[in-house]
């Protein structure tokens, strides 16, 4: 079952934070003209922290703890500035919103492709 807008809002606004069914999305930057709430989804924003892929420090890959941090470079992009992603490259980005999911629900993130011509 997919949670509808009304149920999402009920869980966010009516259930206290320590309730198992409570849903938290913060900061909630919403206005009446461009609501972030759709019929059954919530629009999230990209935050300020990204991980960009980089070449390995060593000439080999070892799937251990140290390699996990040497595969990416952390980057901070302040609000209002931009980050250009090179063609065919994938980067990791954190959402601006902190999310706490209820114990009886899971979340699915889908990207919103925007084509610039």
């Amino acid at each position, binding site marked *: 079952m997919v949670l509808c807008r009304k149920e999402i809002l009920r869980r966010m606004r009516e259930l*206290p934070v*320590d309730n198992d069914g409570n849903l938290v999305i913060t*900061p909630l*930057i919403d206005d009446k003209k461009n609501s972030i709430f759709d019929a059954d989804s919530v629009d999230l924003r990209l935050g300020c922290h990204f991980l960009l892929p980089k070449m390995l420090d060593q000439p080999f890959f070892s799937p251990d703890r140290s390699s996990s941090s040497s595969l990416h470079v*952390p980057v901070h*992009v*302040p609000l209002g500035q931009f980050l250009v992603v090179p063609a065919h490259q994938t980067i990791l980005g954190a959402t*601006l919103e*902190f999310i*706490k999911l209820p114990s009886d629900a899971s979340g699915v993130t889908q990207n919103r492709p925007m084509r610039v011509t």
Partner: protein
Amino acid sequence: MPDGLGALLHDAAVLHRFVDFIEEYCKEQERSQTYIDASGLFFRYVEALASGIKQELTKEITRASRFPKRLEAVRRNMLTLKYFLRLLHELIKPAADAHTLTIPAPLIDLASQQLQRVDGMKNAQIVILLAPEFMYFQRPHSEIKVEARFVASFIPNALFPPKLGFIELPYSQGPNFFTNLAIYHEIGHFVYEELSHSNPRNCHITDVESSTMRCLKRALNKEATKDPESYAFAKKIIESWTQEIFCDLFAIRLVGPAFSFALIEMLGMLGFSKKETIRFSSSHPSSACRFAEHLNMLRTDSWWEAIADIKADQKAILENLAGIPRTSYALYLDDNDLGLHSLVTEFLDIVVPAIRNLVRNITPSPRPAVNRFKKARSNIENCLWCGVVPYATTNPPDPVSIINAAFCFYLTSLPAVIDRFEGTEAARKIETHSLWTKRLEMWTMKSVEDSQIQERLKDVGDKYKNDS
């Protein structure tokens, strides 16, 4: 070629190469990292200065080859530039190290905003430096400003940003949140330095200065008063104590009891003995005296009442230190035969009330912040108890409430949270405590950042409404 021009050309080329490197270094740092606004401003100043120096050197050498009499003037200007660049050189690398991934940027942003609301500090900004020393420090900037003004007379395109302060953090504490509240004290030093050189003079600073004179007159014996060296020595001591007390009270006015707790944590890390708690040195008043002033200010501002129910060791330490009778305070100096023993008493009686008055007059009243804290505290603590970034569905909590509530929560409830999420066994592990402290700090920092974002959007919305 005129006599001396060859040597001057050599010197100019060395200087050219040096500033060329500095200019490129700053540009490279700005390209590869993100900085808070003040650091960006500082780098752009250095770049403009470097570019201006290169242009000026070329022009001056051309002029000197035509008019050999100018050689001496060019040499003098180059000496001034070299001295100024040496001052800047010390700041550039630590400023470059302090990019937004290595410092608590939301806290610095908040502190800058609060600083700008202080009387006489409009448009003031702080550049953060990451230093190798394990201490927080404000780099006095008056000399840089004076030199910058002089340099601007022959490099007109490089104007030093007005009201720019430099604050050093220990590099190991860079990403931390709670201990970095100590920067509010350093901001106090910046404010004091600015106010001391303000034109027209701030009347409350003048009061503090005249109370210093009265204090010296009463404390020093006649011989010491007549001896200019002894008098200057005693005056310097009083001025140092004045600044320290001012900075502590200034920090409390801006950020509340969280500053006192942060200072206790910091002193705990440095390690301080029982003897040191009552010891006045030539640079600092005793910890007991400082915390007595903290407590006094917290009580007057109603913060103490707002945190009355908090049972934390740090609060007890603060109360115990503040409770040490002032008759126990002692002045330790290498050379204490100048009749300086009564300096402490006179300082407490005459100068400290003037400092309190100065702080109250230049900072906004903390009462609204205390009331907001009282209202928001249980919600913030509840969020942290559930492992959630503090938030509110209606009115978002303000940053000072978030910081104080989170600090109180950290001091009182961290073990219980670890126990709740990780179990009793894990709660006994140091690594788990360290990790959860980090998490708590990150949630607090995120909440402060969210609050600032919402505030900024509100301002943009209000501006849009007004414009339309």
